[in-house]
Every structure is written in C-alpha cells, then in structure tokens.
C-alpha cells in the first residue's frame, strides 16, 4: 500500500514560492497528528498479535465482522442508488424549498444516533407508520439484518449526498448542454459526462458513507437491537465487549480501524492516481 501514501501527495506540484515555510506548518500540525495517532497506537499495542489472532477465531467475533461487512456494503449501495438523484437535484436545479431540502439532508448527521434509532422505530417499528402496515401482512423489520441496513443507510446517506452534490456542481453545465445538442439523452449525459467528471467526489462520498455505516452504533442498537450473528455488528460487539471482555473489544476495534483505514486508502489511492490534483 505504500505507493498509495506517496501518490496521495500531489507529486508534480510546482515549486513553492520562496516565502513558503513548510516546517512551520509541520510544527503546528504536530499536536493534532499526535492527538489522533497516539490513542490509535495505544489501541494497537494493547494486546499482543497472538491474542489478536486467537480472538479472531471466536465465533462471535467472526459473526460480527461478517455481518458488519455485509450490512455496510448494502447500506453504501443503497446510499448511492437513493442518494445520487437527490445529490444531482441539489447541485443542478433551483426550486422552491431547495434550501430546506438541503438542510433536511444534513439532519441525520446532526441528529444523535439514538434519536435516529427511535425515529426509525416510529416509522418502521411493529406499530410504526410503515412497519405497522407490513406487520399486517406478516413482515417484521425490527431485530433483523434489514433493520441494520436501514439504520446504517439513514446515518450514512447524508455524507454521500453531501460529497457527490459538490462533485456534480463542479461539472460545467455547458458540457452537459453540448452533449444534449449532440443528441444525448438524460441518462447518457449523466452516465457519460456528469458522473465520470464527478467521479472523484462520488468515490469520496462512497468511502465516507461506507466508513460511517461500518462504524454506526446508536441507531443500530435502538432500531435493530443486539443479537449475535443477526444484528450484532462490530460496534455493538465492541460496546458490549467492554462490559465483559476487554480483549475481544480491543480485537474488534483494531480490525475496525484497520479495515476502514485500508479501504479509505485504496479508494483515495485509486482515484488520486488517475485524477490530476487541482
């Protein structure tokens, strides 16, 4: 992965102006870098690699990892499918209430996750607006893997919309107009012109949404409950692990951090490699 670290620095950047003092900026950045790095380092050094491997073979740990990877992937997919039209709308169209919609999209980021979980229960719960109706036909969402995916999507989709909407806004509308004059239809314009030009932002959105879904805790435990193998994702297992077995909690934390780090790195490495830095 080392190449990714290096390419993420703009490689062909022009020589800096003479008065630029990078040492000063490094010195000023150091407190924050240490602040973030030291707790993570402490986490990684807490248990020996042998313990980590031993804990990895515990069924509850494996179940939590598998469930988390599966649900966060589905949640990301749902965020992209459901979020893209909204992001495009926000970037391209002026309409009454646009500001309100824009604000609404940010609410899940601000909302305490426990409140998000409760709100989801009130809609999708057994007595909720939609859930009550599904209950009539014998379908239940709460306490299932679907509930985990819904909770994660609810929390993560804002991040995808925010990032991709900025990307869409940066695509010059003239390019879309030109394609339209050449006879391209809406879908062709979007899939051939807009989306590829905004791919940097779209990928950032995907990575952010996925990482957020993977770490989602509050809404999941309220809305989906906690059942090993069914709704107990890694963050839930970590939280409950603290009550009983700190070693297991730390193992899962290390895996969670490592997974997120590598995936974010890969996403950034891939698209920074073939997109010139602006």
């Amino acid at each position, binding site marked *: 992965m080392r190449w990714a670290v290096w390419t993420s620095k703009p490689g062909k950047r022009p020589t800096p102006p003479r008065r630029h003092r990078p040492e000063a900026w490094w010195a000023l950045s150091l407190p924050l870098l240490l602040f973030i790095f030291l707790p993570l380092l402490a986490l990684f050094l807490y248990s020996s690699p042998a313990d980590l491997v031993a804990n990895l073979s515990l069924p509850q740990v494996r179940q939590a990892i598998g469930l988390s990877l599966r649900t966060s992937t589905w949640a990301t997919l749902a965020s992209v499918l459901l979020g893209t039209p909204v992001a495009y709308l926000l970037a391209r169209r002026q309409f009454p209430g646009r500001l309100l919609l824009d604000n609404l999209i*940010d609410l899940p980021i601000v909302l305490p996750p426990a409140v998000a979980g409760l709100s989801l229960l009130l809609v999708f*719960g057994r007595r909720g607006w939609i859930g009550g109706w599904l209950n009539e036909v014998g379908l239940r969402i*709460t306490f299932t893997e679907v509930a985990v995916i819904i909770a994660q999507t609810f929390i993560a989709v804002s991040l995808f919309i925010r990032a991709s*909407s900025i990307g869409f806004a*940066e695509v010059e509308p003239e390019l879309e107009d030109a394609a339209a004059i050449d006879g391209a239809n809406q879908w062709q314009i979007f899939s051939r012109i807009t989306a590829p030009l905004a791919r940097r932002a779209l990928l950032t959105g995907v990575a952010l949404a996925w990482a957020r879904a993977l770490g989602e805790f509050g809404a999941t*435990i309220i809305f989906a*409950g906690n059942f090993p193998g069914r709704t107990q994702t890694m963050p839930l297992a970590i939280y*409950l692990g603290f*009550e*009983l077995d700190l070693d297991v909690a730390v193992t899962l934390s290390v895996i969670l951090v490592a997974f997120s780090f590598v995936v974010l790195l890969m996403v950034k490495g891939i698209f920074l490699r073939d997109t010139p830095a602006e």
Partner: protein
Amino acid sequence: MYARLLSHKKWSLLLIFLLLSAALVACGGTAEAPTTTGAPMATEPPEAEPETTLTVFAAASLTDAFTEIAAAFDSDNPGVTTVFNFAGSNQLATQINEGAPADVFASANHTQMDAAVESGRIDADAPTVFVTNRLIVVIPADNPGDIQTLQDLANPGTLIVLAAAEVPVGKYSLEFLDKASADPAFSETFREDVLANVASYEENVRSVLNKVSLGEADAGIVYTSDLVGVEGVSGLEIPDELNLVAEYPIAILNDSANSEMAAAFVEFVLSDGGRALLAEYGFGPGTGQ
C-alpha cells in the same frame, strides 16, 4: 456556478460550526456535574451550619426515589443541600476509586460496593442493604403475544427481549430461566424455548422496557422498580421461589467532610419514612445487613 459552490462551502462551514458547538455543550455538561458537587468542603459539619452540601453517589435506578428522599431530607435539615451523581454503579465505583469527592455511595449491587470498599474509602462494615429489587415480566398493555402465564413465554413465535448477560439484570434473567426449567410447573426445555424466542439482548434494562412499551416486543424482563409510573405496559409477577433478589447496599465514605450529615442521610433512607417512599417506587424492603 461559483456562487453555488460558495454556498455549499458556507453551509458546510456552518454545519461544522454547529457540530462543534454541540460537542462543546455536551462536554461542558458532563464535565461540570462531578466538580460542582464536591466544592464546599472546608468547614467541619455542625448540624445547623448554613450551606452544607452533601454529595450522594447513587445508582441510576434510584434516580426518582432518591430525588424525592433528598427533598424531604433537605427540608428536615435547614442549610443542607443534597446533590447527586446518578450513574451506573460500576461508573460510580470507578469514580470513587479515583478519588471523586463524595459523602455517600448507594450501589445497585454488592460487586460495585465491594470495589469501593477495596479502594479503602469505605469501611468494610459500613455497607447496609437498604432496598431490594426483583424481576418482573413486562408486556405491552394490549398484550400482542397473548401472554397470560409465565409458561406462555416459551410459546413459539413470541417476540422476547432480554438484557444482555453482560449487565446484572440480564444475568438475573437467565438465572430465572434456569430456576423455572428445574420447576415441575414448567417444561424442562423452558429455558431453551424462551431463548429461542429472544430477538435482542439489549444493552441495559431501560432499553428492554422501551422496546416493550413501544410494542416492538411481546415481553421482556425488567426490575419491578422500572415499571413504576410507566404507561402502556403491564407486569406479570414472577413468584418468589423463581425470582432473583438484587440487593442495594448504601454506605458512608470514611473521608467524608460531612460525616455526621452523611450518617443522618443514610439513617433517613433506612427510617420508616424512607422505606415507605422507596416502596412507592417499586423497591422491596432491605435486609439491613
């Protein structure tokens, strides 16, 4: 084009600002609670000394009952203000071990009281069990799972939530299932049948209650004291021989700067008036041991 971009940036900045201020408010709130409680400790405590502050660390489940007890205690003792630090007993024991200023500790179990005794700030003979708490089955008022008896918990398709085995009430719930399975009035597979119905192991007793009161589950197991004042649910009693008794010990800290007043508070809790009040909040009588 650029105007739109700018407005995005402005909104993100505003959002960041809001998030930051929310974080600051949250930090300020939690940081303030323990520090203000322990402040005025300089004077020795003759009873009528004006403005004595008594700091009581109490288990979260005691919040409502102790708030009312403190109101009565403070009006009986002019110049005394009782302040509380309500939290999980394990957190309180940790805070005591780390030297947090406190006069009285009321724990929801012996384990955490023992931990505080080990720190040396509570004498080994100080703790007295002042209340007990029992398990009860909680069901939504409209009883969607049609649960009439404890045996019905084992009916296939019943949706049950329990507290996770990691928290005391979850452990007690499993012990109840064990006891019932050994009882001839229940089937031998009662424990397995009930566990097969469990949809979720909740992080604490409050969320078990919430799942049931929202109607998401057909039944759950909580403490009797949790049900007091809660609407939309009903309780199904668990008989004594199958039930578990959670004991709550209370003790004075030996380094209390208001030890007389602290002793008076504990006495008040153990008095007939105090017991009657605790009984109103669903707690059983203490053993006095």
